């Protein structure tokens, strides 16, 4: 199914669904949570999924001041609580994103001094600043977080930016009301990644591994010095070293290292680091390496898988002559692709309560990729858990959020149907007790307009042009441009008999050549933004045609 549809609130009946007690005929949605009339709400008669795998019918959920105060069938409903009629709606715990960086800006680093020696840079210039706090670089009010909230995310772990191996400490923020300070926790983990600033020491993974070992040893010695200085009077002063100081909670086991990896050899390196110097480890960005699953389980390493999945290799088969072994190579590529999609399911099967990260993921791919994971072995409950209860546990906030029960934060996702049902739409998101209403229907008479650039291989060589196809009032119409067969530049014809589904597109048009008319039929397969098919010129033959959809580029959070 096309999950983009999920993002466009669809149902006309939505209008009748919320009759607010104090404003009975309030019919417009409230995307920014600004029309709040009180802090007390009750969702009535709803279907509640308090935690993955549990479904309760006819439930009322009361929340006040950002806290769920009562859940059940027969709870008293205070008159002051604004009612959200949950009849026909489905209420989930709000999603939690890990290792997220939207809204975070890069810190300004000190200038390189005169006569700078790149072999001995100050730590900050080398990208080693674990003492930086992401909250100082996070813009609470940024459009990305709002857009992610619209997809159901209510809470995120924010990562500091930085080009080097130790960019700083992460924080937890709630995607709540704008203007409030939405910080939940800071100095929440030390963020580590296998990357370097470039041009200074350390410059490769070789130097990163060695630097880490020395930093840990010296943090221990620094701590020893600290203890000596605290206990005795006649000890030389401890020169303050913010980098080492920031690592003391790691060696004490008080703070986990959130370690970002980009392949399975990185995972091996991370495990080696953990074996050498015991510390709490959470891996994020996991995208491969199913052989390592038992090892991660044994070592009790926290796992965060990336929602960014590889492109389907069969969507871009190169044209032209193929070598003999093309098919076998292609099969291996497809197998590798399938393995990527199946990874989340394997983690679930192994009993590792993994979470997910949207880092590097374009928003438009969120539900699509989640669905791909589910189609390739991850259970629906497992997918829900990876977005709710599992990250809450990894972040140590499962007593506050991640499931729906009395006393938890009012972080809710309210849907028109169950999560993986085709056509299910996000009706509202409640975050920190603020209600964000996304139920508005599409504007009347709105048009869907698409432009395609095509390339056809005809007898006369390559032929290119554009298709402009519009949907208005349920009917597809449009125009096609093509090179005039008589060499008079580009010509335009209108597109007729267009039929467009999620997977197929066909239409016809007429080309005038002098006094003759050529009827042309185009038909083929659609996948996302690509069309491959044939162009049949009646009476002349059939030629392959490819087209690419040009639309407004969707912003990713990358």
């Amino acid at each position: 199914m096309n999950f983009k549809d999920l993002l466009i609130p669809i149902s006309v009946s939505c209008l009748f669904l919320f009759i607010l007690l104090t404003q009975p005929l309030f019919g417009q949605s409230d995307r920014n949570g600004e029309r709040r009339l009180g802090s007390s709400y009750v969702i009535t008669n709803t279907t509640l999924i308090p935690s993955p795998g549990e479904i309760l019918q006819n439930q009322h959920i009361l929340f006040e001041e950002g806290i769920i105060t009562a859940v059940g069938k027969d709870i008293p409903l205070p008159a002051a609580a604004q009612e959200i009629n949950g009849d026909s709606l489905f209420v989930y715990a709000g999603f939690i994103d890990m290792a997220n960086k939207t809204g975070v800006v890069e810190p300004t680093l000190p200038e390189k001094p005169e006569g700078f020696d790149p072999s001995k840079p100050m730590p900050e210039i080398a990208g080693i600043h674990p003492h930086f706090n992401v909250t100082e670089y996070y813009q609470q009010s940024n459009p990305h977080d709002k857009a992610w909230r619209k997809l159901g995310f209510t809470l995120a772990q924010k990562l500091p930016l930085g080009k080097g191996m130790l960019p700083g400490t992460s924080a937890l923020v709630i995607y709540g009301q704008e203007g409030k300070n939405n910080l939940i926790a800071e100095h929440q983990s030390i963020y580590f990644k296998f990357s370097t600033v470039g041009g200074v020491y350390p410059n490769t993974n070789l130097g990163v591994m060695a630097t880490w070992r020395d930093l840990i040893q010296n943090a221990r010695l620094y701590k020893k010095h600290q203890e000596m200085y605290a206990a005795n009077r006649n000890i030389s002063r401890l020169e303050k070293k913010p980098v080492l100081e920031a690592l003391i909670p790691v060696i004490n086991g008080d703070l986990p290292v959130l370690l970002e990896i980009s392949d399975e050899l990185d995972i091996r390196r991370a495990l080696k680091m953990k074996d050498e110097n015991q510390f709490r480890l959470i891996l994020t960005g996991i995208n491969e390496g199913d052989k390592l699953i038992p090892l991660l389980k044994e070592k009790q390493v926290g796992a965060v898988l990336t929602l960014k999945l590889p492109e389907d290799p069969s969507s871009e088969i190169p044209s032209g002559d193929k070598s003999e072994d093309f098919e076998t190579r292609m099969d291996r590529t497809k197998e590798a692709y399938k393995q990527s999609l199946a990874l989340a399911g394997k983690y679930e099967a192994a009993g590792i309560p993994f979470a997910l990260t949207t880092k590097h993921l374009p928003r438009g791919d969120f539900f699509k990729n989640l669905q791909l994971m589910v189609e390739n072995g991850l259970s629906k409950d497992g997918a829900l858990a990876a977005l709710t209860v599992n990250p809450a546990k990894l972040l140590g906030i499962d007593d506050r959020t991640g499931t729906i029960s009395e006393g938890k934060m009012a972080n809710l996702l309210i849907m028109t149907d169950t999560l993986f049902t085709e056509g299910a739409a996000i009706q509202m998101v409640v975050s920190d007790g603020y209600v964000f209403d996304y139920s508005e229907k599409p504007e009347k008479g709105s048009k869907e307009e698409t432009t395609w650039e095509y390339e056809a291989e005809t007898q006369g060589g390559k032929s290119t042009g554009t298709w402009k196809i519009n949907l208005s009032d349920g009917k597809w119409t449009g125009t096609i441009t093509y090179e005039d067969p008589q060499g008079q530049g580009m010509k335009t014809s209108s597109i007729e008999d267009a039929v467009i589904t999620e997977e197929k597109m066909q239409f016809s048009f007429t080309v005038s050549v002098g006094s003759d008319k050529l009827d042309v039929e185009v038909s083929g397969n659609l996948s996302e933004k690509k069309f491959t098919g044939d162009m049949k010129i009646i009476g002349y033959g059939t030629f392959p045609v490819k087209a690419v959809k040009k639309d407004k580029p969707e912003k990713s959070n990358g």
Partner: protein
Amino acid sequence: MVRKILVSIIILTLFIGASQAQEIEKGDVFIQNAHVITITDGVKEITDVWVKNGIIHQIGKQLQVPGDVPVIDASGKFLMPGIIDAHSHVALGAINEASSPITAEVKMEDVIDPFDIGIYRALAGGTTISHAMHGSANAIGGQNITLKHRYGTFNPDELVMEEAPRTIKFALGENPTRVHGRGKNLQPRSRMGVEAVIRNGFEEALQYKESWEAWNKVKDQKNNRQVPPTFNSRLETLLDILDGEIIIHCHSYRADEIYMLIQVCQDYGIDKIVFSHVNEGFKVAPELAKYTMGASVFSDWWAYKFEVYYSTAYNAAILTKNGVITSINSDSAELIRHLYHEAAKTQRYGGLSDEEALALITINPARQLGIDQWVGSIEEGKQADLVLFDKHPLSIYAIPQMTWVDGIKYFDREEDKTDQRLKVDPEETLEPMFLHADHINCMSDVDFYFTGFGRNLFEHNH
């Protein structure tokens, strides 16, 4: 060393990789009726070699075939020890930590890439062990790692030859002076600077040792006023070199610089040193024979930069005849596939015997890596790293047929598939095609963007 003394205050890393290490697979095989080129005990015609649990169990004629062991009919074929490459960069994810003139703390074992198809290609050329080295950008580079080509594992640690002693890369001459001197205006800028960097490094290490000894003496005393020193794994490593725990493998070309480093080593009491490349080694052959663990050379590569002009294809033969432990290395993912050709060139240029020529790629590199008690020849009790050729390995027509590591067959020409990759990129529809494989080489990962020089200065590889 100092590290050992540290244990009381620092929980140290004595268990590196221990929990990740899995049992290395060992095999049994019975190779029948081969011409067995033992290297250390002549050629044995029509002889059987019985391998049990990865070890050469018995060598002899008409041995009784044991049950349950795969038998290889090697009639008319030539069995020799697996080829050992004393200078390679295959199976590494990074080569140079080129950001400092001394990087003794970095470890190639941290960046082993078990998916490198180069491992399989090396096996197809009969090479079973390679010395995976740091590059030559720094006067003192990183700690190398000796790999056994157990291709097929996803675990980088399983490629490591655990018995092998520690080794480290040094580099003299144009590479370190160009990267640090001309590139970044640091020392070394000249050959004199290279010597100064190395000597200063050792001196600093000795001072470091003193500061730790002073601390360890007083740290448990009551009313101790001294504070702990800083830990520095770079200086720790240099101390381990001074203590003879690490073999130096030094990139070098010119006789003067080779002799310079011999003198430095003499001054610091270091006798574990092997010179690599050594194009002018023939000029200082007696000194190399007397003071070092030998020279690892190219058969006939030279003139790719100024310091490599004075060279001869007779180098390996001259060194051998002067009693230098000599090996021929590849320094290349391509040459590593036919080191037996390289060895054969010494018969044309210098008239070495079959045994002398083959020692250049077997027992001699094993000696230089400190692993000759386990590998490098076919002897009972040694590890069963073997390669079977259809013709005599010094014949230009010889082709390796099968290659074993620890008695496990990792290459068989009969079973060679078109696609031997271990891992496939899910987004790649077609493997990119290269007309020639780019050499992974001594100067990989060196950032040239901080230099003011044109790239053409850096196109050469070694």
